[in-house]
């Protein structure tokens, strides 16, 4: 246990001190602030109150940027340490392989969550003046969904890092995977869905196979439990599983997107020259 804490602390310290994480936190905070202010501005122009459009903008931001940050952070982890010879020195120590993988993961989760917290913290300060008690649950769900999907991105990045030949290859693969989840699968569904008669079950499967989409649906279900904002698909999932069941299904899918890549990274570790 003390070794796990040592590895996690080492990774967290290194990530926080690196310029990359500091820069990412700054960019995410600036974009979050801009989305929040633009959303609130559009409300005022219409003479409305509340946080609706601002939180809708934040949902889309939260399921796009933090997973990319997680993917890139994870992709650089093992592959970068391997290139520097540091992974060999760490792996030669009497530390179980799982401890190394999970320690690296936990340390980077800490750095990633800190980055997300800084961004959303700024948004919360701005929204505090206009939010009412009813807004707290959807905003809370948005934060939880964002943290979960960014963690899934990180786990996928670590898995890529465990297999990749080098840091550059790992980062390229991570970016490609992000494009697949953020755009590619939606485009494929839009193009092929009608032709193959996907139906609601096929659409649900496609959502579960895309952690970004699962997190977006989860945040939107929390914001509007009736599921009407999600159209016929929302009506199907809430009708078939209930709101709680649908949320549990989506949360379970994201949890699997975290656990499975870590297991894959652990499997790859002894099979790959360090």
């Amino acid at each position: 246990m003390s070794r796990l804490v040592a590895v996690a602390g080492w990774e967290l310290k290194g990530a926080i001190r690196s310029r990359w994480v500091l820069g990412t936190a700054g960019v995410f905070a600036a974009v979050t602030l801009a989305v929040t202010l633009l959303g609130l501005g559009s409300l005022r122009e219409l003479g409305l109150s509340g946080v609706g459009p601002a939180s809708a903008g934040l949902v889309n931001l939260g399921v796009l940027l933090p997973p990319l940050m997680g993917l890139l952070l994870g992709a650089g982890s093992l592959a970068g340490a391997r290139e520097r010879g540091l992974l060999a020195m760490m792996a030669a120590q009497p530390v179980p392989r799982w401890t190394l993988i999970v320690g690296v993961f936990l340390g980077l989760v800490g750095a990633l969550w800190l980055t997300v917290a800084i961004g959303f913290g700024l948004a919360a300060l701005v929204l505090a003046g206009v939010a009412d008690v009813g807004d707290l649950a959807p905003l809370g769900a948005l934060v939880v969904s964002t943290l979960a999907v960014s963690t899934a991105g990180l786990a996928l990045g670590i898995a890529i890092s465990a297999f990749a030949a080098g840091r550059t290859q790992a980062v390229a693969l991570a970016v490609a995977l992000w494009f697949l989840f953020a755009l590619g699968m939606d485009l494929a569904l839009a193009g092929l869905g009608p032709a193959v008669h996907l139906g609601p079950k096929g659409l649900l499967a496609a959502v579960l196979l895309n952690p970004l989409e699962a997190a977006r649906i989860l945040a939107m279900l929390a914001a509007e439990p009736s599921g009407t904002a999600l159209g016929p698909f929302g009506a199907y999932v809430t009708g078939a599983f209930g709101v709680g069941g649908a949320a549990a299904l989506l949360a379970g899918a994201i949890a699997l997107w975290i656990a499975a890549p870590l297991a894959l990274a652990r499997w790859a570790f002894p099979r790959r020259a360090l």
Partner: protein
Amino acid sequence: MERESPVLLTERLSKSYGPHPVLVDVGFTLRAGTIAVVSGANGTGKSTLLRCIAGLVPFEGTASVSGAPAGSLEARRTVGYLPQTVSLPENVTVGEVLSFFAKLRGADGLCILPEGFLPADERPVGVLSGGQRQRVALAIALLGFPKLLLLDEPVANLDELGREGFWETLRGVAEVGAAALVASPMPGDLAGVADRAIVLDEGRIVFDGPMDGDHALVRLRARGTEPDPREARA
């Protein structure tokens, strides 16, 4: 009286990268208190051999450290490993690096290197020279008094004083029972330090014998791994 079991035993150890064999049927033993230099021309498998024994590379054949399979948790408890190149993070201090690796080893962080060998604890790694960083990496390999040291070109980048200090320390740890396998393309550097020379050529052991005086060096020169000073003068 029963002979003491070896600290390191390899049998038919082989490693290929794709179709290219790097190590072929490498077999030898190393007993406590022995310092062996592994030599050979560039690309003959010296580093790969050390990496296999450290459990960092999958291989065929057998390698055991103090009776435990190489790479197992039990074996790693007794091994100190220094890779050929290591780039420590620049944004941590010397003290933080040593403390981190001491925690991984379950060691107390006590440094057995001579006083003044290491840069001050509070100095960031980013401001250290190549030689100073190498000294920190050597200190990591020696943490916790390992029974077997696997050192890949340990004195690269070190100045004369640093080399002397390190060899002296290595002799000291061997005297109290540790064994060391030192990869070096310049085995002459270990004359007077190593007891034994193992020469690799295209992944095979072509010489394994005592490093007594000129005997081994002559063999090494014959294999083109150590320049002959007479030729150099000519």
